[in-house]
């Protein structure tokens, strides 16, 4: 399973420790999640989404997420008249 926890966490300005406290897990668990070494339960995924202010499918996906650069490039192209 792929995720964007690190991206959203950085955007929200949260440390691993702060996010861990918010979702009631050990800070090391956030590291495991971000690296994809551990797949969370539905409950933890929902709690993470709630704290990070994102939908679950924005945070987790079965297929790799497209890179941010590709997405921004595609958006810029579509906006060009």
């Amino acid at each position, binding site marked *: 399973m792929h995720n964007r926890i690190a991206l959203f966490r950085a955007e929200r300005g949260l440390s691993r420790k702060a996010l861990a406290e918010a979702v009631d897990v050990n800070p090391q668990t956030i590291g495991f999640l971000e690296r994809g070494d*551990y797949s969370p339960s539905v409950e933890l995924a929902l709690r993470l989404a709630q704290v990070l202010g994102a939908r679950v499918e924005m945070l987790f996906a079965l297929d790799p997420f497209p890179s941010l650069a590709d997405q921004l490039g595609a958006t810029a192209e579509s906006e060009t008249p």
Partner: protein
Amino acid sequence: MMLRKTTTKTNRYALAISPRVARVLSVLSIGSLWAWFFLKFYLTAESTWLMRAVGELALLGVGGSMILFATQYLNQAYGEDHEIDERERSARDRAYRVALNYVLWVFVLTFVTLEVAGARDVPKATGSAIGFPAVISKGVVENFLVVLFFTTFALPPAILAWWDRGESDEG
């Protein structure tokens, strides 16, 4: 090595040692306990200084197991379900599975060894001792149980230490 609060929900105090130190300690304690058992099994009582040195191995093994048990891996290995998070529970369950396999293999190997020894032309069971290259006395059985107890006791925290990547909580 210092006393520090663990990062689990209970915030218990535990000995804070690095994963690397815990790994070395686990190999030393488990290894020295088995070394003590086998050396004591085959050593004769005449070599007293050697017996004393072998006795030190037991102390090292038991002491190492106790230290390992008092580390930050204590909570994860022996904590209640509500005291650790779901990833820690999953790791703990895997560590228990490894520890169970270890105990089962020790029993299987012990049984096979006794069967193989029994099949050879060695002295038959007499009283409280049974035939073996050396006589298996009550003391040998007790030593075996001590080793099995302390190594099984130290194994789950040791396994968790081996799996610990030692990353910082910050980031």
